[in-house]
């Protein structure tokens, strides 16, 4: 028993972000009569699934010590492809959309791998460029799906639970298990925690990072396809600013920007925190302008609290 517990030490303990999620959950339950209902909670799950899916991949990339700013653009491109290519068949369209995400992820990973340049720079460029590709492909137009099966899928439910929420939760579970149980997952921590040692241990660093960029590309594309199915359409501006919210969610979840530390459970908490805040403030009719301020202030507060909680004050010199 102790050994099992030991392997998950530090992860078995409840993460601060979940305390926060529980707190705001209780808060909004009291503040709004509409908040606490199955319908609303599944709504939150569906609404967070887009950012949530990307955040799963982003967690891997960020534990690696990298970052991917191009996810919003990849999402937009995948959505446009998934709708725009439906003349050639729904399956082909979806496969092409997912493949585009993985391909662009691979490209990001390849450049980071071969040049060793900060992923921030590489993916910032990709973020601009891929958005350009979307406009080039769509001719600045929105696409509308003629295939109702596609839109119906986005709205379908299994029992009372929407399919999109189920997909999101399933992916979360799988990614959690991969991160904690498999060689690739454990190597993700090694690469972020001590790249030099990882190379010596025979982990192929560049290849490993590239796989994670492909993973985040895949999830961004998947999120794009699912979002498009929700709308039965795709717009060229889709996914703008999503990278910022994704990174915010992952950081709220406790993943370190410097790499080597993080978890999927934390990320799930971070995603839910943002989703619940947005939903709750909508229900409480907080004016849109104030929502921006509140979200920003909460993010900074969490950062400050995290700093105060996590740094053993005796170890660090006053700098």
């Amino acid at each position, binding site marked *: 028993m102790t*050994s099992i517990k*030991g*392997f998950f*030490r*530090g992860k078995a303990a409840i993460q601060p972000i979940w305390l926060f999620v529980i707190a705001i959950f209780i808060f909004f339950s009291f503040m709004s009569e509409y908040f606490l209902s199955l319908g609303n909670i599944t709504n939150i799950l569906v609404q967070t699934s887009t950012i949530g899916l990307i955040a799963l991949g982003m967690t891997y990339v960020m534990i690696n010590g990298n970052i991917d700013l191009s996810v919003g653009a990849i999402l937009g491109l995948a959505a446009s492809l998934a709708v725009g290519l439906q003349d050639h068949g729904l399956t082909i369209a979806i496969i092409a959309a997912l493949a585009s995400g993985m391909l662009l992820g691979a490209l990001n990973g390849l450049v980071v791998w071969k040049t060793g340049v900060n992923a921030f720079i590489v993916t910032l460029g990709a973020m601009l460029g891929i958005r350009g590709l979307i406009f080039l492909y769509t001719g600045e137009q929105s696409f509308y799906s003629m295939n109702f099966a596609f839109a119906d899928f986005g709205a379908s439910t299994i029992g009372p639970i929407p399919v999109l929420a189920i997909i999101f939760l399933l992916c979360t579970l799988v990614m959690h298990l991969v991160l904690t*149980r*498999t*060689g*690739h997952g*454990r*190597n993700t*921590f*090694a690469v972020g*925690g*001590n790249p*030099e*040692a*990882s*190379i*010596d*241990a*025979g*982990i192929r660093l560049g290849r490993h990072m590239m796989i994670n960029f492909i993973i985040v590309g895949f999830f961004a594309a998947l999120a794009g396809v699912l979002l498009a199915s929700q709308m039965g359409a795709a717009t060229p501006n889709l996914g703008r600013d999503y990278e910022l919210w994704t990174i915010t969610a992952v950081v709220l979840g406790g993943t370190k920007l410097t790499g*080597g*530390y993080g978890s999927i459970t934390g990320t799930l908490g971070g995603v839910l925190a943002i989703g619940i805040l947005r939903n709750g403030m909508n229900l409480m009719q907080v004016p849109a302008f104030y929502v921006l301020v509140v979200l920003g202030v909460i993010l900074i507060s969490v950062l400050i609290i995290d700093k105060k909680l996590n740094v053993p004050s*005796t170890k660090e*010199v*006053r*700098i």
Partner: protein
Amino acid sequence: MNPVQAITGRQPIDAEPILKLEGITKRFPGVVALNKVDFDVRPGEVHALLGENGAGKSTLMKVLAGKHQANEGRIILGGEEMEFENPKHAKRAGVVLIHQEQSLVPEMTVAENIYLGSLPKKWGNRVDWRRLREDTNRILETLKCSFQHDDLVGSLSIAKKQMVEIARALVFTPRVVVFDEPTASLTDHEKPVLYDVIQSLCEQGVGIVYISHRMDEIFHLSHRISVLRDGEYTGTVNTCSTNEDEVTRMMIGRSLELDHASKPSEFGENMLELRNLSVKRLFTDVSLNVRRGEIIGMYGLVGAGRSEVAETIFGLRSPSGGEILLDGEVVNFRNSHDAVVAGIALVPEDRKDQGLILGMNCRDNMTLAGLKTVSTMGFMKRADERAVYDKYHQAMKIKTPSWRQKVGNLSGGNQQKIVIGKWLHTHPKLLILDEPTRGIDVGSKAEIHALVKDLAKSGYAVLVISSEMPEVLGLSNRIIAMYDGRVTAEFDGDSVSEDELVQAITGMGTPTPAAAVIG
């Protein structure tokens, strides 16, 4: 008491070498790092490899362990010629390099670190935790480790981390293990554990390559000694039939003597006085004084609170009790800047992280602590800066091609001299040196020791923190011993015995009252 004291040369082992390196040449663009070097290790033997920094020891070992590939030469392991493409490849063949720098992942468990890159798998890519646990426990048992397989490595002490590194070497039944400066970050009482491990590896017939700067260790452990100088192989001797002088000569081409007699002897007023200085959870009631022209040695184990005392004096930590007096006046620094203004200089423990901006050139590093003195109205005066650089460059015989050289490209000794030069330029009242010669070759070490003594003689108050006994004994007028955050004793630097010192820093015996012996 001191395990290092027993200096006994061992008889060489007579056996066919398990590993032979023949004519290894490694060229980097513009430089030949290794020129036709031969080296071999016999099973069950400790073969020490010596040389000054930059002589090519580490490069040779990296070639051996597959991190670099040689341009010429052969590696023969157990009679077969090998070509290692990467460290994992070498490891699988049984050649393991235990690194000078810690190569562990702090956020992972001991078990995961030991099996990094080769976690046992089942069902495809799924980690087999049970086997991992069992295998790890087996290795930890053979090493008699006091920590668990599921401890996070980040929470272990340096010595224990070192044991994890060694445990990692045992994953693939090793045939040759290379220790690169394994004791650099260990304290004297942690070393015997390491020696035991090496002993037991030898008994299993493993060949050991041991790289170190410490003569005492080498003579204690090794069977044979090989020396490299400037990338060239200078020879191999049997440990039992040689002495320190001969080995030193082989390394630097001349002999060295520790000059105990040249210690400073004229002291002035109290420059620094600590009165019951405390920082919560780090150290308590530390009292000491340093006079002008005096060298005080602070001796203790890593973690005894020595560096923390220095950092507190330097304004990097706020005291929770007691007071600091500088030149007779109570001072209260808000930050390191205040301390520098007040005339305190700290040569920190970790050169690369704390001492230098590696990407900056030599000159800029040199003037960094005293920018005000080389500028008017905030504008830098280039000529003055050059003058400052030239002055210390000459005074300390820093070997660099030009002031434009990035300090990251210099050897450890020269880097340390730049750090010291940086502080001399501020003309401090008190100079604190924290482990001033760690990881520095013998030649530079002696130069730095001489420099410190000269500085004291010219009126500086000097506080030297060290975990090397010869250094403390050779430099200090008085020695402050620390154990577990407290000052346990104060000794006269000339009359103290090594036994007394070891007792004081390991918490054995009754602590001598701090004021009992004043030199």
